[in-house]
Each structure stands twice: as structure tokens, then as C-alpha cells.
């Protein structure tokens, strides 16, 4: 179960940065075909998520596999839990 905070903050990035209404931010929404992002936007999505969550994700391999919002939530959750494990 993904922490609600991760869902909310990720959705905030889409609302604020990409000007997408919250009603369209369904977990199964495909970021390219449903939400209309393109290759330039993906670079900015990564920068925005890094700033929002204070994590580094640019060089993570799994970034390449992201297709839906749900994929982003799970990816962020995984990165955060790996970082928590390192500092524990």
C-alpha cells in the first residue's frame, strides 16, 4: 500500500508543473498517452520529483520503466525505502 503522502505530492507536481486537473490523475493514467507528457516533459518531471521528495532519481535505471502514475508512486516509494534503509 503506497503512503498517501507520496500519492498527494506526486499529484501536486502534475497539477502545478504540468497544469493537469486533479480529476485526470488516476493511478492507471498513462503519463504519455493519457496525460499528454512528451520526452521534454519527462526530464522536467524527474527534476520536479527530485525537488518535491528531496531524492535523487535521475540515474536510477527503473526510471526508464515508468509508464503510469501508479508506476511513479511505486518507484518513489521504493527509492525512499532504500534511502531509509541506508541511513538506518
Amino acid at each position, binding site marked *: 500500500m503506497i503512503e498517501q503522502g507520496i500519492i498527494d505530492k506526486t499529484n501536486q507536481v502534475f497539477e502545478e508543473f504540468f*497544469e493537469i486537473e486533479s480529476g485526470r490523475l488516476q493511478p492507471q493514467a498513462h503519463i504519455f498517452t493519457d496525460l499528454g507528457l512528451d520526452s*521534454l*516533459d519527462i526530464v*522536467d518531471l524527474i*527534476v520536479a520529483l*527530485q*525537488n518535491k521528495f528531496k531524492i535523487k532519481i*535521475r540515474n536510477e535505471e527503473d526510471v526508464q520503466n515508468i509508464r503510469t502514475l501508479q508506476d511513479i508512486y511505486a518507484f518513489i516509494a521504493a527509492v525512499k525505502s532504500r534511502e531509509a534503509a541506508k541511513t538506518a
Partner: protein
Amino acid sequence: MKLKRVVITGMGAVTPLGHDVPSLMAGIEEGRSAVRYMEGWDQYLGMRSLVGAPAELKDEKKIPRQQRRSMGRMSIFAAQAAAQAVADAQITLSGAPGFRIGCAIGSTMGSAKSINDTFEIMLPKKDLSQLNSTMFFQCMSHTAAVNVAQYLGLNGYVLSTAAACASGLQAIGAGYDLIRLGKQDVMLCGGAEELHPTVTGSFDILFATSANFNKDPQRTPRPFDGDRDGLVCGEGSGVLVLEDRDRALARNARIYAEIVGYSTNGNGVHMSQPNKDAMVRCMQDALQESGIPAGDVDYINAHATGTPQGDCEEAAAVRELFGDAVPISSLKGYLGHTLGASGAIELIASIGMMEQGTIYPTLNLERVDEACGGVRHVLKRERADVDVVLKNCFAFGGINATLVCRKHRSERG
């Protein structure tokens, strides 16, 4: 090869006096100065000039996000001005097969704020990972031209004429030459620039800015005036639709004016000092191309920015060619110096004067400096038949540009 004739069929502007051409003309008619004290500029150590003429950024969200993301402030102004010009010309951007439409939009540099923000983010730790993908597109020097082209879907020539204060006029000249040669049918031409403390700062460190009126901003700049002390930076964009005259007549377009002469040159002498002889040569060449004698020019729209040296050098050049026969005024007192946009915005205002049969005075010109004398300064609004306008821009790097326009009258051949 017979050269085509080139006419102006549309105009659009975002300026410190307002968000369109009517508000530009209304502001000048009312004698309004858009110069104000700029809050926060005193944080820049050593900055002498704390005044500027800002334009209002508004309605930017009407530009779809994926087109707007590559636009800094300056490109937004340019896109808005270009869209206004297209609407004014009532021109369809996708014409018949073989219809060729492009743009030439000049600016001194890319978006000043975006450049500033990019380095502020990157430099402290030389960290690239914080940079957005679109920062580069906002910073690159041809940003205004490509953003206008992408926004309007133009797929002809896309030119970016970077020549400081002559950028806008060089863009119009380039478009004129392309249409004359039959290489494009329509060109959207003009300039854009953004106000930012670093832009004023670049003139400030050369002592070229006005620093004596920080507490009384609307009294500066003072072109040709004995108390002038330098330029005041402004911002905005002006775009004109240039069209093959035959095409414009065939579609019954409203034609403002015909461009009848253009020239540009470098003085080959000094990077920042203006040179009267090169200015004279530039105006002569433009007039020669137009076939119009100097005495038949009805109004000269000056470059004069309020710098001690530039204004008197321009006055000397005008005196040599025209004596005191031709009314001359500068619009910098109302608008500040909009740099890359100035040639286009001020040409638009000059065409407005043609339309209104009125010549507007140089704002803040209260006591003509003796060194700027011997020409016919316009000190008060004058009613006049303005048929032929000569527009000058004289830029850093010793770049000069002059454009001659004649009012369109349908009975003319």
C-alpha cells in the same frame, strides 16, 4: 529579375504602455511615461540606475503549456505580439500550396531572467541535475524567433537577428529583402526584449544608464535634452506582418504602408562610440533605395536614447542630411529603451502617427542641448500629413539600421 514590392499589413505590440497597439498609441497621445523605480534593484552592488520601463506579463496561460514551456518572458511577449499582428492582418497562416511564410524576430540575447535563473541554479555547486529541459530553449539566443515560429506553425525562413538595439529593425529589413527577392510571400518581423537588472547592469557598468532620476523616474530618459544622463531600459515586443504587395492587393488586405528603403551597416571604428559618418551613410543608402529625396521625408523617428554622446552624434548626422527641414522626435521618454524590440515598436508607433496625421513630441525634451541643435525637434504634438517616415536604430557594436516607409494610398500605382 524584377524585385517585388513589400507592404505592411498587420501590427502587434506588447509594450510598457500596454498590451496592444491601441494602448501604445493612447499612452503616447496622453504623454505618459512608463518608467518607474524598480524595487529590489538596489541589491545589485554598484548598480547606479534603479529605474526601468516594465511591460505587464499577462494572459500567458492562454498559450498552451507545451508551447509555453520553452518561452521565457521575452518570448511570451513576442508570441503575443505576433498573434496580434496576424489577427490584424487577417491573414491565414496556412495558405495555398507553395505559400511561404516565415519570421524574423531579433533580440539582444535570450531570455535574461531565464539565463540568470539557470546560472543561479547551476553555479553554486556546478550542479546540472537541477536544470529543467526547457531552460536551454528559453536561454538560447534565437528563442524569440523559434517560439514565434512554433507557436504559429510557421515553416518558412526562421531568422533571428541579434544586433542589440538594431535587432528589430534588422529583422524587418531581412524580411523585406526576402520578400523583395521572391523567396518568401509573408514574413512576421520584429523584435523582443526583457527587462532585468542584469540587462540594465550591462549598460550601467559602462556608465551609459540614467542614474540621476532614481527619485523622479518619469523625468528620464531625456533624449536630446541638456540634462540627459543616459538610457533607461524597457521591455516588450513589436511584430509587423510584411507581405508581397501583389498578394496583399489581390486579397484586398488593409495596407498600412510600403517599405521603400532599408540599409544597415557597421561603423568599423569603435565598439561603443557612435559614429556620425556611418549613420549618415546608412540613412543615405536607405533613402537612395527608396528613390525619395531627403527633403520629402515627413518625419524621422529617432533612435536617441538619452545618452550624452549618442544623441548628439545622431543629431549631427540628421543635421548633415536634412538640416532643420524634417521634424524629428524620439519615443524613448515614453517607453524607455526596449532594446531589441525598439526598432519594431517605434516603427509601429510611427505608422500610428501616419494613420493619425499627428507627430508626437520627444517626452522630457525641455531644453534642447546645443550639441543636438540644428534639427527640427518636435516639442509639442503637431498635426501633419505623415506620408514618408524614416526610422533609425543605432546600436552597440557600431551597428546602424535605417528603414524608410511610405503611407499606402490606394490611388498610388
